[in-house]
């Protein structure tokens, strides 16, 4: 069971308290009516699914209830950073450099 740091509560809490929410930084288009069918389908259904670091949404469901973002390595399951929704994605190169393998 992972320990996940909630950036709102500022505490490491067990995975059981959280709910996964899919890839992060997939912004809803501001004016969906002006988006082409193809682009809308990409927005709805296409995700990056990387083997490696992945920015993803989590919600502290059984805690503060807030959505936030995490950078997780999909192979090692290590969470390299968590940050509040709306904050910019951290620089991945710095993150992976800092935390090693």
């Amino acid at each position, binding site marked *: 069971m*992972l320990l996940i740091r909630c950036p709102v509560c500022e505490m490491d809490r067990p995975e059981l308290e959280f709910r996964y929410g899919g890839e992060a930084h997939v912004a809803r288009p501001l004016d969906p*009516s002006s988006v082409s069918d193809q682009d809308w389908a990409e927005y709805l259904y296409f995700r990056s699914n990387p083997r490696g670091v992945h920015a993803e949404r989590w919600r502290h469901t059984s805690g503060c209830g807030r959505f936030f973002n995490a950078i997780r390595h999909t192979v090692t*399951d290590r969470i390299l950073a968590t940050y509040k929704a*709306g904050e910019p994605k951290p620089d991945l190169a710095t993150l992976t450099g800092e935390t090693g393998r």
Partner: protein
Amino acid sequence: MTQPFRTAAGGHVDRARAIPFTFDGKSYTGHAGDTLASALLANGVALMGRSFKYHRPRGVLGAGAEEPNALVSVSRGGGRFTPNLRATQVELYEGLVAESQNRWPSLAVDVGEVNNLVPPGVFSAGFYYKTFMAPAGAWKGVYEPFIRKAAGLGVVPREPDPDHYTHRYAFCDVLVVGAGAAGLAAALAASEGGARVIVADENPAMGGGLLDEPDLAIDGQPAAAWAAQAVATLVARTNVTLLTRTQAFGYYAQNFVGLAQRLTDHLAALPAHAPRERMWKLRAGRVVLATGAIEQPLVFPDNDRPGIMLAGAARTYLNRYGVKPGDHAVVFTVDDSGYAAALDLARAGVAIAAVVDVRPEPGEAAALAANAAALRVLSASVITGTSGRLRVSGAEIGKVGPDGTVRPVERIACDCVLMAGGWVPAVHLFSQSRGKLRFDDARGIYLPGEPAQAQLSVGACNGAFGIAAALAEGFAAGGAGAAPAVSGEIAPMGGGFQGAVPHHRDPQKVKAFVDFQNDVTAKDIRLAVREGFRSIEHVKRYTTNGMATDQGKTSNMNGLAIAAGALDKPVPQVGLTTFRAPYTPVTFGSFAGHSRDHLFDPVRKTATHAWAQANGAVFEDVGLWKRAWYFPKPGETMHAAVARECRTVRDTGGVFDASTLGKIEVVGPDAAEFMNRLYTNPWTKLEPGRCRYGLMLNEQGFVIDDGVIGRLAPDRFHVTTTTGGAPRVLAHMEDYLQTEFTDLKVWLTSTTEQWAVIAVQGPNARRVLQPLVDGIDISREAMPHMSLREGRICGVPTRLFRVSFTGELGFEVNVPADHGLAAWEAIWAESQRYGMAAYGTESMHVLRAEKGFIIVGQETDGTVTPNDLGLDWAIGKLKPDFVGKRSLTRPDMLKADRKQLVGLLTADPAAVLEEGAQITAEATPIRGRPALGHVTSSYASPAAGRSIAMALVAGGRARMGETVFIPMPAGPIAAQVCEPIFHDKDGSRLDG
């Protein structure tokens, strides 16, 4: 009863205490401190089980968790029955009742033994895949019953488990797994400075291999005494927790380790109310793995007869339990540890017929000691076969020539053969922790590489074999103190010979076992390679090597080496199968803990639950809720009760508990705009005091929820959701509010449990409520359909909705949940003046279906759009955007052949269709042609006087009047497509 193989002295059992027990119904006596295996051996019982495929007689191979053969079932009465326990780990207690497994009619005479005589090939590698391929259908009739009866391990318990199990979460600075020399040393050193240390060991006593070394001295003290002192020191430290009988079975991310602690299995009398097992969910700052090594058997023909065991196990039986494995032993060894066993046994009076050593020369210390004890050593020799039926009676010896060929030389009579096939580090937990293993070419063993977590492996599991090396690594890992001096040790060297022992016999005609528990032979593994399997993971699955309950603790390395040999590749290039949790089997009870029976899931009850119970309600589970399903009168069937309830509602009225509907209060200056974006409907112009049916989509444009929503004030909405959808809808709303529509000032609060909801439906609904309301004008003119008033009812505050899910005049009375029962009782009393009925969820379903009202989750399945449901009227077409809007114009959403909601009327009005049944255009479905759709709702309708159904049918709205078919086992049922409404099409009854 005498114990012929018990030594006169020695061992750590309590000889003053005789412990009676039974095995397969026969009575024996052992001593306190025995395991079932050691006590049986003491009594001269070598035969303890039958093998899985060939039903070959088997004795004990090991002395601990690695045991593949001696699996037993233990019954304690009263439903307490545990199969597949390793006799080597079952502690003896007074009155223990154990049974062997996998034999019929008895252990000595087993019908299944004929499997051993069937032609070669029938049970060879991949036999599951080959033998049962054809003819089709034979599996169910022939093979499966045969396999189930003849093979398999223990039987499943039949009665519910009367025991209870508990869970504990814990934290520590250092977790030490294994309390042998390395583990004790690490624990002593780590705890010296006050760090919180937990030590877990699978055995009843700590000390591990230190308990098996009579000649070895640590700082001049006997090894066992040093261990006892170390344990005493740790016990005295308040920062240390010692857990015996505790298996670290799983190692997960971030040093999260699962421990299974056995609390009562070893007790003759079970303490009242004590849990049987405790599962520890432990998070450790640092983990020290001191899990030791597992001695490997040697793969030679007929290496599985009772009496053939691991040399290290024989030492354990002798030194820990005071039990001789036999009277005449042949020791077959690949390293010096076989000599340690031979010397111990010789001193205990066991005649060592020979030490058969595959090496041209034994190690120096071993040679000296063997010489001193006048042991007969046969170097460059192997065992090429054994004899004996229920116990080994002799070993065939072969001499290995310089070219590797084997020449038979002699037969040696014996009643036990001890195999010292080399030691393999127990890297299971290290590997589970995602650490990468590295192969030590020199010793032919896998060792822990770089750890993936804050963790260290010490002692034999790290390749540091022997007590001296283990102590040194343990103390170093604990970070304090120097290791004590060790004398008198013949240390094993690890690794050693792996693969199949060479012999001169026809390999097709002998069985040299690799995996004892799954009956996999060297021949099977070679066959798998010949048939094209290259990856060890595939070889494993094809042969089932290492896939039994012992997970290959004594077979993986030999199997790997044989496969590597057949592939002519070095071992590390063939790879290693993955180690998975649990290390040893863990009971289901332990995982379940207290989550069973009434504690399995919370039960949610509405305020009127007790009233419904007292009035004969039958309940159904809806999510966690208990809902009144129907209210049968004495002797009334469900069908009759539902028909009566439905008729009564339409004739005069009915009362229904709708409290389980989800409720969310949406509040804030931007509440209306938020509702505009989250629901398809327009909300801006809805006046306070009015309600609207709301439809919620996901971004893909599919219906995910619906409900009536009332506007209480410009900035306040009372939202209702489906019963099951409440948490999902709130999470959906929060998601958009927190991450997309962050500009909106809105607060969301779940109020599901704050309000009890009593639906009063039917022509007399207004008359019932009239005398009960206070300060609310509920007249037809003042309170029209789809309106909402706040005031008082039955003396308590209410939010009163005028809504209808039946098509009749209706109200839904919301009162604070604490007043729900009182309000219900007052309304009920009033309703009885009009002969109204209490009705349950079944009638609610029928009444709404008669009106064609959908239920999200019944008429929808996550792929249904508003248009599919004929609900375009609920879409605010002038709104620039709402969640799901853009998707509604995607090309796929506009296709004419989408499945659309229609009604169905069966040709036979008495035929009630099965919900979920497929619908086809032809009476006999045409192969390869997809179904048109499926039945979503179907009931016998009292109002229509016949059966009714709703269905999703491709292009359904263009099929009005067409006949479709519902193919069923008894033949196709014809039905006509119609509008999905079956009663009061013009809605005239809404006003009563």
